[in-house]
């Protein structure tokens, strides 16, 4: 890290600590630091990301997004719970219940393909949303930050693919043993 960047980061962080001890800005930065998506980012880069995310609050039972709709944003839960549901043949199955610090809808950052599941708020839930095109714009304005985020995204998608492969392989093995 260059000296100028280091000084700027220190200045920003120290200023924020001094003047915005309980500000939403600092809360947001502190939260973003805990999210695996952004754990490679410096404070300055986190500040940039914080400038492009949207605060959204959902009431109990409210849909955050619906299965089949085009995806446009990644959501990070800052407070509350979200259930990820899948709807098929008039039946709804809950795949997972996510809590504070978790994120969902990350595939929307890569393309416009329809959402593979719905996300519903359980109780009042506060989220931060990162819009795909804002991240794309970051590639031009701050390629370093964007590359860190995309690398984290690739790692997460890779991990999920690996665990899915393991699941499929395990299921195949069980079938063979039972046969």
């Amino acid at each position, binding site marked *: 890290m260059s000296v*100028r960047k280091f000084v*700027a980061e220190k200045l920003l962080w120290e200023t924020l600590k001094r003047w915005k001890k309980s500000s939403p800005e600092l809360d947001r930065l502190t939260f973003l630091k805990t999210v695996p998506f952004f754990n490679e980012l410096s404070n300055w880069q986190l500040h940039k990301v914080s*400038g492009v995310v949207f605060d959204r609050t959902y009431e109990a039972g409210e849909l955050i997004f619906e299965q089949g709709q085009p995806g446009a944003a990644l959501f990070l839960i800052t407070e509350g719970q979200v259930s990820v549901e899948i709807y098929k043949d008039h039946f709804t199955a809950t795949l997972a219940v996510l809590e504070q610090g978790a994120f969902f809808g990350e595939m929307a950052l890569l393309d416009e393909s329809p959402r593979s599941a719905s996300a519903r708020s359980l109780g009042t839930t506060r989220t931060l949303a990162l*819009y795909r095109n804002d991240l794309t714009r970051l590639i031009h304005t701050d390629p370093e930050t964007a590359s860190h985020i995309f690398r984290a995204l690739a790692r997460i998608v890779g991990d999920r693919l690996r665990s899915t492969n393991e699941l499929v392989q395990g299921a195949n093995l069980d079938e063979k043993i039972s046969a």
Partner: protein
Amino acid sequence: MKRRATLEEQEAERKVRRRIFKSGFWVLTLLAAVFLLWKLSSLLLPMVVGAFMAYLFRPLKDRFQIPWLHHELRVLTLFAVIGCALFMTGNTVRRHIPDEREKLELKVRIKYKMNEKFQELVGTNDKQKRGGVVAQVLIKELGPMMDKINKFIDLPPEEQELFMKYRTGHAGQPPIEDRFFDYFQANQTTSVYTVQDREPASVRPEHESMANVGQGANVAQSSHHEDFTIWIIAPLIFIFLGFDNGQIRRYIIGLVPNRYFELSLTVMDELDDAIGRYLRGTLMECALVGATLAIGFILVGIPVSIAIAIGVVSGLVNAIPFLGTVIGLIIGLAYALVAENVTPLIPGLNPNDLTVYVCILVFIAHMLDNAIYAPIVLGKAVNLHPLVVALAIVSGSLLGGAWGMLFAIPTVVVVKTAVETLFKELKDYRII
């Protein structure tokens, strides 16, 4: 059980109250917006111009990234750089703007040359041709227009006096050349092309007319002051929008219900992208047409400063479809008619055929624009039916004059793109 039912009833009542409050709020907001728009309609144009400039400036701001510099300081630095560039350009332009003496010379020259060309056209300076049928028709049709132009560019007595002072050297300036003095004398004897069938309206007591002049000056001064007050809004809007770091967008998105959050982000973004592409494409197209004309005019022998000035104006008016080319041609021809001592840079060109070269140049620029510039820089940004374009320009001119004509097409593009994008996204999100 009873308590729960009461709570549910209370919640239902609250919902109804909330709906009534929201509806009332939006109706009042709409009424207030309509009232303000009506009352402050004169502010609309400066606001649009300021926002438009900020919109064009935004990509530059986004590209100008200094990681260790705070956003506000970064924008201020960029403003300073642009301000310096504008100041230097302004200074260069000002040097080419004619001073008082040159203005007088130009007016005298324009009047002389214009009448000379007109008389050549109708044959009134050729005794053999005099009285021909074509000449009579031309005088009958174009005479009134020529009289009006002559009246408009004629030197009033005080300017004539000033001209005579400059003739012998005045205010440290060299004396006016003999040929301009000859033009001046010839202009004094320029005849009126139409028979005056009415008494001139200016036959009134001198003191009355002087009082009216004074009143006119006061009215003009107050009108200038009003214009300044209104137009000061444009740079302010430009500066404040320049400082915006996404706060306005965030605020608007914050007002959108959760159900439409992703939809509104997508619509805003696509709209922004389409309009930005169109506006920046049009600006680039205008710049290319202006540059083509300026280079062409320099090659046929028009002085560099005048060629650039005509190129800039023609490039700007090129933003008005159809009319842009015509206006460019008129400006070019107007100069070609009064130009003298022209030495073309391309060998073999006859300086006396400048008007023909101007017509050819404008035609070439128009063809290049249609065949190369517009398809490359605009691509398929927005396709408008020619009838829509024509109607938009006429409506724009009726509603807002020259500015209305200039902004008619961008407005139609904004509305068309907004409606198309909104319907597409509403369908994609299965809302309609």
